[in-house]
C-alpha cells in the first residue's frame, strides 16, 4: 500500500509539472506524403492513414497515393491497404518534406475484395464501393482458365451476370450500357473480347479496380448504374521484371521496369488469343472452311516523377477482335468471305501536381475510340453469270476528353472539385456496297451513311466531406451541360452520402444520388455483341437519368482474429428515358443486309421508344478478408422492371435479366505455402424469355398468289413471360506456386461447372415452316470445363 501511495504521488507530480510542458511541446501541422508499394514503387490510392494516438485523425490517400492530414504531434500512424501488411510510423515532429511510405505486400492476408472500408477509418469515402485486388483474380476458378476481373465482380451483391460466361455487368437492375468503364480515367466503350467471354481488362497490368454502385462521389458521372474505375500499374520504378501466362484461351506477357530508378518507369503488357491457332490448324487438317476468331490487346504506359510534387503518366491501350470466315461450295461455283472486326483504343495523359498549400490537382487528357467494321464478299463463279457482291459496313464512336480534378484536405474536412469537357463523334452507320456482274450491263454501287452526330458535354462538380462526432457526411453536386445539334440540356445531379458510427463495430449509412447518361446503346440481343450501336442522346431522345437511394449497415463481428464483416444494403433505383427498339428491329435481328439497306434507310431514331425502369432490392454479404481462409457469401433479393410506351401495350414488364434471387459463395484457402485452393458457387434465378402465347394467320397470304401456305404470326401479350430454370454451378481452382532461381512459376488447374450442370445459355422456340406448331429447345453452352494454365514471373519483385 505504501509503495502504491508513492506511485500515486509520483503520477500526480508528473501531471502537475510536466503535462503543461508536454502540451506546449505538441506541434500542429499538415502532414503530407505518398503511399507506395515498397517493392514496385506503385502508388497506392485509397490507402488508410490513421493516427492511433488521437483516434480521431485519419484520411485516405487520394489520386497517386497522395495524402494530407492535420497532425498534432506526436503521432503514431497506422497505414493500411488491402493486400498489404499494415505499417506503423511514429513521428514526434513534423517532417521537413513530403513522406514516402512503402507498404509490403501481404502474402498471408490476401485481401481480395473489400466492400466498404473498415470502421477504424474515420473518413469512409464511399458507400457500396467494391475494391477488387486483381491478384486474387488469378487464383479464382475461371472459364477455360481465363482469369477475368469482370467475372469476379459478378459475384458481388447487386451485380449479376447476363448470359452465362459473358462479362456483362447488370448492376442493381441496370443494363450493361449503364456501366462506365474507365481505364486510367478514359472511357472504354466495349469491355468485351470474344463476344463477352473475355473482358478487355488484362489483370497483369491492373493495379486496382474500384466499382461504385451507389453513393456515387460527385466527380463521377455519365452512367446510371455503376462506375468501374480501372487503374493500371505505372510500372516498377525499382527493378526490371517480366511475367506471363500461357492458357487455353490466350497467352499474356508483361514487361516492366525503371527507366530511371525511383524517377520513371515503363510497363508493356500484351495478350493474344490462342483460339485462332487451334481453329486455323483444325480447318487445314479437315480441309474445312475457315472459321477463325482472334483477339489481342496491348497496354503500354510510361510514368515519371519530375519532382516530389509532380507525377506524369502516359498510357495507351489498343485491343481488337476479328472473326473471319471463308467459304467455297463443293462445286466451286460460289465463294464467300466474311469478316467482322471491332476494337477499342485509348490514349491518356495524366499529370498529378501537389501545390505547396496542400491542394492537389490531377489533369487528364485523352481520347477513346470504338469501331466496328464488317466486310462481306460473295462471288458467283459460274461462267455465264460471274457476279461479285461486296458490302462493307462500319460504325464508330470517338470521344475526346479533358478534365481537371482538385482536392484539398484540412482537419476533418476534404473539399474536391473539378471540371471536364468531352466531345463525342458518332458515326452510327456507313454502308458501302457494290454489285457487279461481269460481261453484263449491271453494275450498281453506292455509299449510304446514317447522319453523323457530334455531341459536346461540359461538366463541373464540387464535393465536401467532413467528419463530426460519429458522423461522416459527403455531399456535393455534379452539373452537366450537354449539347447535341441545336438542343442543350442542363442536368444537375445532387449527391449525398452520410454515415453514422453507432459503436466501434457498427455503422449505418444512407446515400442518395442522381445520375445522367448522354449515350444510349441500341441492341436487343442481350449478349454484348459488337453489333450493338452507341448513339447519342438527341433532341428527340433525351439523356437517360436515374434517381437512386440506398440505406445500409455494416457490422464487424467482434471476434479477435476472425475479421468477419456483415454488410446489408437496401436500394431503390428509378431510371428514365431508356431506349429500346419498338419495331423489333436491330442489326443482328434483321441481318446486316436488310439492316443496311432497309432500316438504314429508316433512321434509328424512328425505330426506338422511350421508357423507364425500376429496381429495388436487398443485398447481404458476409465476408472474411484476412487470414489463410478468406471469402464471402452474398445474397441479393431484387426486382427489376421496364415500361415503354410502345412495348407490351405500355404496361410494366419484368426485365430480361431480372434475377429475383442471386447467391454467390467464394472460398479461398491457403493450404500450404505453395498451394492455394478456391471455390465458387453460384445460384441464381433464371433469365426471362418471351414465349408466344398464341398465333393467328398473317395478313399476307402467299398461297393466294400460288406460293407457300399462309404463315402464322405470334401473339406476344406479355414480354418476358417465362422464367428459365434456376442457374447454378460450382467451380474449383488449385494453384501450385514454386520459386525458381529465375523467379517464380505457377500451375493453375481450374474446373468450371464441376458437376456439369446444363444451364440454359438460351432457349429457342422452333416451328414448322409456317409457324403452326411449336417446340422449345434448350442450348447449354458450358458443361464441365477443366483447364490448365501456366504462369511465370521473372524478377525479384515477383519472388514472394
Amino acid at each position, binding site marked *: 500500500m505504501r509503495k502504491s501511495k508513492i506511485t500515486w504521488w509520483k503520477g500526480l507530480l508528473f501531471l502537475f509539472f510536466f503535462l503543461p510542458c508536454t502540451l506546449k511541446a505538441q506541434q500542429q501541422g499538415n502532414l503530407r506524403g505518398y503511399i507506395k508499394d515498397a517493392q514496385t514503387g506503385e502508388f497506392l490510392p485509397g490507402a488508410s492513414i490513421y493516427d492511433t494516438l488521437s483516434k480521431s485523425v485519419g484520411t485516405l490517400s487520394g489520386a497517386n497515393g497522395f495524402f494530407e492530414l492535420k497532425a498534432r504531434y506526436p503521432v503514431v500512424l497506422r497505414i493500411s491497404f488491402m493486400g498489404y501488411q499494415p505499417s506503423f510510423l511514429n513521428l514526434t515532429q513534423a517532417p521537413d518534406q513530403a513522406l514516402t511510405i512503402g507498404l509490403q505486400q501481404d502474402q498471408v492476408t490476401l485481401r481480395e475484395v473489400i466492400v466498404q472500408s473498415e470502421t477504424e477509418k474515420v473518413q469512409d469515402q464511399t458507400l457500396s464501393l467494391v475494391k477488387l485486388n486483381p491478384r486474387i483474380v488469378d487464383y479464382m476458378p475461371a472459364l477455360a482458365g481465363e482469369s477475368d476481373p469482370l467475372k469476379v465482380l459478378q459475384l458481388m451483391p447487386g451485380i449479376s451476370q447476363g448470359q452465362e460466361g459473358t462479362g456483362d455487368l447488370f448492376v442493381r437492375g441496370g443494363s450493361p450500357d449503364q456501366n462506365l468503364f474507365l481505364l486510367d480515367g478514359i472511357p472504354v466503350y466495349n469491355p468485351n473480347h470474344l463476344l463477352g467471354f473475355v473482358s478487355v481488362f488484362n489483370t497483369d497490368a491492373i493495379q486496382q479496380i474500384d466499382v461504385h454502385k451507389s453513393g456515387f462521389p460527385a466527380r463521377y458521372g455519365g452512367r446510371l448504374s455503376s462506375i468501374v474505375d480501372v487503374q493500371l500499374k505505372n510500372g516498377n520504378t525499382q527493378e526490371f521484371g517480366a511475367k506471363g501466362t500461357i492458357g487455353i484461351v490466350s497467352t499474356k506477357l508483361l514487361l516492366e521496369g525503371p527507366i530511371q530508378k525511383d524517377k520513371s518507369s515503363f510497363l508493356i503488357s500484351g495478350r493474344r488469343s490462342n*483460339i485462332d491457332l487451334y481453329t486455323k490448324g483444325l480447318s487445314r487438317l479437315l480441309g474445312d472452311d475457315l472459321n477463325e*476468331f482472334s483477339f489481342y490487346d496491348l497496354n503500354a504506359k510510361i510514368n515519371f516523377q519530375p519532382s516530389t510534387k509532380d507525377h506524369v503518366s502516359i498510357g495507351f491501350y489498343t485491343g481488337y477482335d476479328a472473326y473471319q*470466315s471463308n467459304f467455297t461450295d463443293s462445286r466451286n461455283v460460289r465463294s464467300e468471305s*466474311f469478316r467482322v472486326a471491332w476494337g477499342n483504343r485509348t490514349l491518356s495523359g495524366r499529370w498529378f501536381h501537389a501545390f505547396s498549400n496542400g491542394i492537389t490537382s490531377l489533369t487528364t487528357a485523352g481520347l477513346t475510340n470504338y469501331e466496328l467494321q464488317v466486310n462481306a464478299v460473295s462471288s458467283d463463279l459460274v461462267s455465264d453469270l460471274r457476279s461479285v457482291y461486296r458490302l462493307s459496313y462500319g460504325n464508330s464512336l470517338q470521344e475526346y476528353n479533358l478534365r481537371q480534378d482538385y482536392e484539398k484536405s484540412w482537419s476533418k474536412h476534404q473539399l474536391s472539385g473539378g471540371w471536364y469537357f468531352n466531345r463525342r463523334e458518332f458515326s452510327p452507320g456507313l454502308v458501302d456496297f457494290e454489285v457487279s456482274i461481269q460481261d453484263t*450491263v*449491271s453494275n450498281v454501287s*453506292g455509299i*449510304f451513311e446514317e447522319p453523323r452526330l457530334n455531341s459536346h458535354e461540359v461538366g463541373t462538380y464540387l464535393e465536401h466531406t467532413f467528419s463530426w462526432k460519429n458522423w461522416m457526411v459527403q455531399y456535393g453536386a455534379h452539373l452537366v451541360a450537354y449539347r447535341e445539334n441545336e438542343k442543350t440540356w442542363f442536368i444537375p445531379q445532387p449527391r449525398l452520402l452520410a454515415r453514422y458510427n453507432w459503436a466501434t463495430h457498427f455503422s449505418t449509412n444512407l446515400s442518395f444520388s442522381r445520375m445522367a447518361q448522354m449515350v444510349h446503346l441500341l441492341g436487343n440481343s*442481350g*449478349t454484348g455483341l459488337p*453489333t450493338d450501336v452507341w448513339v447519342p442522346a438527341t433532341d428527340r431522345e433525351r439523356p437517360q437519368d436515374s434517381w437512386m437511394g440506398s440505406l445500409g449497415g455494416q457490422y464487424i463481428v467482434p471476434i479477435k482474429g476472425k475479421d468477419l464483416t456483415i454488410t446489408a444494403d437496401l436500394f431503390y433505383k428509378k431510371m428514365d428515358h431508356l431506349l429500346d427498339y419498338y*419495331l*423489333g*428491329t436491330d442489326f*443482328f*435481328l*434483321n*441481318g*446486316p*443486309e*436488310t439492316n443496311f*439497306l*432497309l432500316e438504314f*434507310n*429508316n*433512321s434509328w431514331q424512328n425505330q426506338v421508344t422511350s421508357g423507364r425502369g425500376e429496381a429495388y432490392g436487398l443485398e447481404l454479404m458476409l465476408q472474411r478478408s484476412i487470414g489463410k481462409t478468406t471469402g464471402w457469401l452474398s445474397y441479393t433479393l431484387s426486382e427489376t422492371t421496364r415500361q415503354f410506351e410502345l*412495348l*407490351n401495350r405500355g404496361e410494366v414488364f419484368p426485365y430480361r435479366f431480372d434475377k429475383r434471387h442471386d447467391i454467390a459463395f467464394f472460398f479461398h484457402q491457403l493450404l500450404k505455402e505453395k498451394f492455394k485452393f478456391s471455390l465458387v458457387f453460384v445460384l441464381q434465378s433464371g433469365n426471362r*424469355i418471351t*414465349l*408466344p*402465347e*398464341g*398465333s*393467328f*394467320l*398473317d*395478313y399476307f397470304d402467299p398461297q393466294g*398468289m400460288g406460293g407457300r401456305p399462309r*404463315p402464322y*404470326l*405470334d*401473339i*406476344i401479350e406479355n414480354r418476358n*413471360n417465362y422464367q428459365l430454370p434456376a442457374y447454378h454451378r460450382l467451380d474449383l481452382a488449385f494453384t501450385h506456386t514454386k520459386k525458381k532461381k529465375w523467379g517464380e512459376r505457377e500451375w493453375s488447374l481450374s474446373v468450371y461447372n464441376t458437376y*456439369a450442370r446444363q444451364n440454359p445459355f*438460351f*432457349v*429457342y422456340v422452333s416451328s414448322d415452316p409456317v*409457324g403452326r*406448331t*411449336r*417446340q*422449345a429447345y*434448350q*442450348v*447449354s*453452352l*458450358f*458443361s464441365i470445363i477443366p483447364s490448365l494454365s501456366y504462369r511465370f514471373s521473372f524478377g525479384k519483385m515477383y519472388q514472394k
Partner: protein
Amino acid sequence: MKNRFINLLYALVVMNAFSCTKLIDIEFPAHERKPVIYAMPVPGEPLEVELLYSRGVNQFGLDYNINHFPRLFVNQQEVDTTRKTSVAKYLFEPDLKAGDELRLEVWEGDSLIAFANTKVPEINDLSIGAYQYTAPTNDLNINNASFEIRFPNLPEDEYFMLADLIKSKSFLGETTLEGRGSSLKSTIPILDKFLPRSVGFKDKFFAEGEIVIPLSIYYSNDEDVASGYPPNIYFLIVGKLSREKYLFFETSRNQNLARENFLAQVYEIYSNVTGGYGFFGAYDYVVFRFERKGQSFEWVPSSKEELFEGVDIINW
C-alpha cells in the same frame, strides 16, 4: 450475312465439345381465343374485311371466324355490307375521302366483341422534279434515266409512306427486272432491294419537310432489242399509310425475320384492335407512270385505274 453472324455464335458453341441442345418441355402460356381483323380502307376502292380467330400455341382449330360479323361506320354512319366474298370475308363499298373517320366493330349476336378506328390519310400533292436522261456512252450500251419525285410541304406529324416500283402495267404478269440485263436503281436503296414488293417507311428520315425519291432506270438497248421487248412502262406507286397499317406491317415483318433467331428479343405485333388482333388501317396512294419511248423516258400523268387495268383489285 445474317447467318454468318449467327454461325459465329454457333461456332463458339461448337467449339465447346460439351455443349448440347435438347428438347425441353415448356408449358406455353394459356391463351383465350380472340377475333382477328384485317381491313385496309382505300378511297375509291371497295373494302374487304377478313375475320379470323387467334389460337393458343399448339392448339388446333378453325382459323376462320364464322361466329362473328363486322359492322362498318364512316363518320359515325353505318355502311351496309354488300356481300360476303368468302367464308370469313365481308365486302363494303363506302365512299371514302381524305379525313373520313372510320370505325369497325365485330359483333357476336348482340354483343360487341372487338373494335378498331382509323382515319383516311390526306395525301399531299406530289411533283416530278429533275428529270435527266443519259444516252449510252460506252460499249455496254447502257441507258440511264433519272427522276426525282418530290413531296413538298410535308406536315410536321408522322408521315408513313409506302412505295412500289413496278415494271409494266401488270405487275402480276411481269414481276422482276432481274436477269434481263436492265435494272432499277434508286438512292433509296430499299426500292432496289425489295422490287417489286411494297415497302413502307417513315418520313422522319427525310429532312426539311420534303421527301425526294431519286430514281434511276438502267437498261441495255442490246438486251431489249435481243429480247424483243416493247418499250417499257414503269409505275411508281407512292402511298400514305395510316399509322396502324404501318406499325402492323413493320412489326409482323420483323417478327417473321426473328422467328429462328435465338438471340433476338421477340416483339409483339402491333394492333389497333381493341379486344382482338390484326389491324384496321386506311391507306391512300398516287401513281406515277414512266414510259420509255425510243431512246428517252417520259413521265406520263396516270391514274389508279390505269395501273390496275386487268388486275383484280380486291386481291391486291
